């Protein structure tokens, strides 16, 4: 490389506006990842009131299976994508059948702890299959980053954003407009009453695990080109995703995504205005602060919150 000439201060520095824009974009990128993960929490919670602590592992499996299919087995994107989702859905079925279903009479807390155990198990299995190295996927659209008024955003972020929006709309329609969706939310409020109304509660629980496994897989496929993926990534994604879901109001699709954006952007601007060492602390502090005044989250309703156990 040629000699780096001493650059006068500011030659390569950006204008204040592009800096602010850059921080915003950075927050959006991170936030969209949190939001995608957060979405997966909402469905199982909506159907069972279980907080699935293995949600991060669905994301991890999505990313890694997609890697094996498209990069490893060289399948085209449009085959690998649905196939990955199907495989992770199958894993979701097995998970529900072998870990949750036999214990359906156990308390909610027991079930949540079981999901924690499943998370460790999935990590162990993934470690055996893929080893400990991180993997990456090529971005969906090639080409470099997009520059908007001096600030950079990678095209993959648009894919994540678009997918998150689509999922929010579809989920909204599913829970509001379809019988199955309504039946599913009925189960979480009162499984007994729901089954008296002729709803097959067990089927709904199974369906909720399948759906959120699918959502996790989509999230994994979408974010791996940005953030890489390795067997151990699940828990951290789950923590941030869970915070986003709680901030937006547990169980609310658009709340989860917006919660993700808020946390992502807060982190980014803490880096910009205060210090990058404090970014997680500030984001979590604001989360606690909001929950102090509105325990059900920004978009959550107080009444619904009272009926549920968690």
């Amino acid at each position: 490389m040629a000699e780096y000439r001493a650059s006068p201060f500011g030659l390569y520095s950006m204008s204040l506006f592009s800096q602010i824009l850059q921080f915003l974009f950075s927050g959006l990128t991170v936030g969209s990842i949190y939001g995608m993960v957060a979405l997966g929490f909402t469905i199982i919670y909506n159907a069972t009131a279980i907080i699935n602590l293995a949600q991060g592992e669905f994301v991890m499996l999505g990313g890694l299976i997609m890697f094996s299919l498209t990069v490893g087995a060289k399948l085209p994107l449009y085959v690998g994508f649905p196939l990955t989702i199907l495989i992770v859905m199958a894993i979701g079925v097995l998970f529900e059948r072998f870990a949750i279903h036999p214990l359906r009479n156990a308390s909610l807390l027991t079930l949540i702890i079981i999901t924690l155990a499943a998370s460790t198990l999935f990590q162990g299995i993934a470690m055996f299959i893929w080893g400990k190295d991180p993997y990456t996927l090529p971005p969906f659209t090639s080409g470099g980053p997009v520059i908007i008024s001096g600030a950079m955003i990678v095209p993959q972020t648009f894919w994540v954003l678009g997918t998150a929006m689509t999922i929010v709309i579809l989920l909204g329609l599913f829970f509001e407009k379809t019988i199955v969706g309504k039946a599913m939310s009925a189960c979480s409020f009162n499984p007994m009453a729901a089954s008296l109304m002729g709803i097959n509660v067990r089927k709904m629980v199974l369906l909720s695990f399948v759906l959120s496994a699918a959502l996790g897989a989509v999230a994994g496929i979408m974010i791996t080109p940005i953030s890489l993926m390795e067997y151990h990534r699940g828990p951290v994604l789950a923590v941030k995703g869970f915070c986003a879901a709680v901030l937006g109001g547990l169980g609310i699709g658009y709340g989860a995504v917006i919660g993700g954006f808020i946390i992502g952007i807060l982190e980014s601007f803490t880096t910009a205005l205060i210090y990058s060492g404090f970014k997680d602390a500030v984001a979590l502090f604001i989360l606690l602060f909001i929950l102090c005044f509105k325990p059900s989250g920004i978009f959550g309703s107080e009444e619904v919150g009272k009926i549920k156990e968690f």
Partner: protein
Amino acid sequence: MKKSWIAFLTMVFCITLTQSVWAAYKIGFVAAITGPASWIGEPEKNTAVMLQEWINSARGISGVPVEILIEDSKGMEGDAVLATKKLIERDKVPIIIGSSTTGESMAMLPICERAETPMISMASALSIVTPEDEMKRMETSAQPWLEVAKKQRYWIFKVAEKDADNVEKIYMYCQAKKIKKVGIITVSSGYGVEGRRQLKRLARKYGIEIVADELYEMRDTDMTAQLTKIKASGAQAVINWSFGPAQVIVTKNWSDLGMRGKIPLIQSGAFGNKNNIKLAAGAAEGVIVVLQRAVFAEKVDPKNPQKPVLMKYKTEYEKRFKSDVSTFGGHAYDAIMMTTEALKAVGPDKKKIRDYLETKIRYWPGVGGMFNMSPSDHTGFGTDGMEMIEVVKGEWELAK
């Protein structure tokens, strides 16, 4: 009655047999084989397995086989401590090798000191071998950037390059390139914290000013915000001190922000794994790395006394494990080979092994460097163990 006698005799025979197998030289080996630092621990474990085979197929150490007791610390301080206690108290090992990361090594060393057992760490931080009061003295002296450690922890050694030497090598390079202002971005784990400490301490020695000082977490997914701040600070180079996927993400963000060719990215030694270049998918072009010689053994000057050791280790490792060699496995190689030599000379005596390591490892060509241990230096090599490397077309090339 007769049958039970036969059974009893068989049992006795079995016990004596197993005991004769147990009468081997034991070496305690702790590494982060799984968990977040597994990509460091894995090649270390592989190397340990391979070396045990080598040594025992060559009739062991003067006829006595070697048994390397490998424990997984999972990259966690707590587990590393438990493994160390188990090895010392139950397995009665005369020496501990480990662990892979600075944090774990810092947690393990008080136990080895208390049990008066020598320990060879495979992690990099200067403070592993330097007592805290000595570190404080160096940092609070009138000219901290000119200080070198004079005192070392009695029982503790390490074979990985010192972070301080890595930093000096980088700053020497900056000086040669007339870079006066740098931005540093470090991960907030043991490795990053110690690296940052040295980056800040030594800057003045090379007339360098740190104009931005940013942090991130090990599993963060995007560092654009921190790099944007560095870009705006007037820095002429970015120095990133971290490891694992985060190091690749920083590289991608640096490339996406269009900093290549304007504000060069200098990476700490942990970047020395070909997989990182592959993962960055082109973004690593032009990245500068401070590296030990193991990963580019073929390009090392044939006159260098390390050359035969490097070539043998590299070719054998890559043949045996079908994966690229890394500097980390090299640390395990050096630690085990030193220990074997000490065991051969003095037998399994803790104090004698320690003395041997401190006084007899002289001009000792290892994978990491030419080791010269002394009472004031328990690492044994300095900036001479490193080279500045540039990523050119996906390959390591000596930086010009």
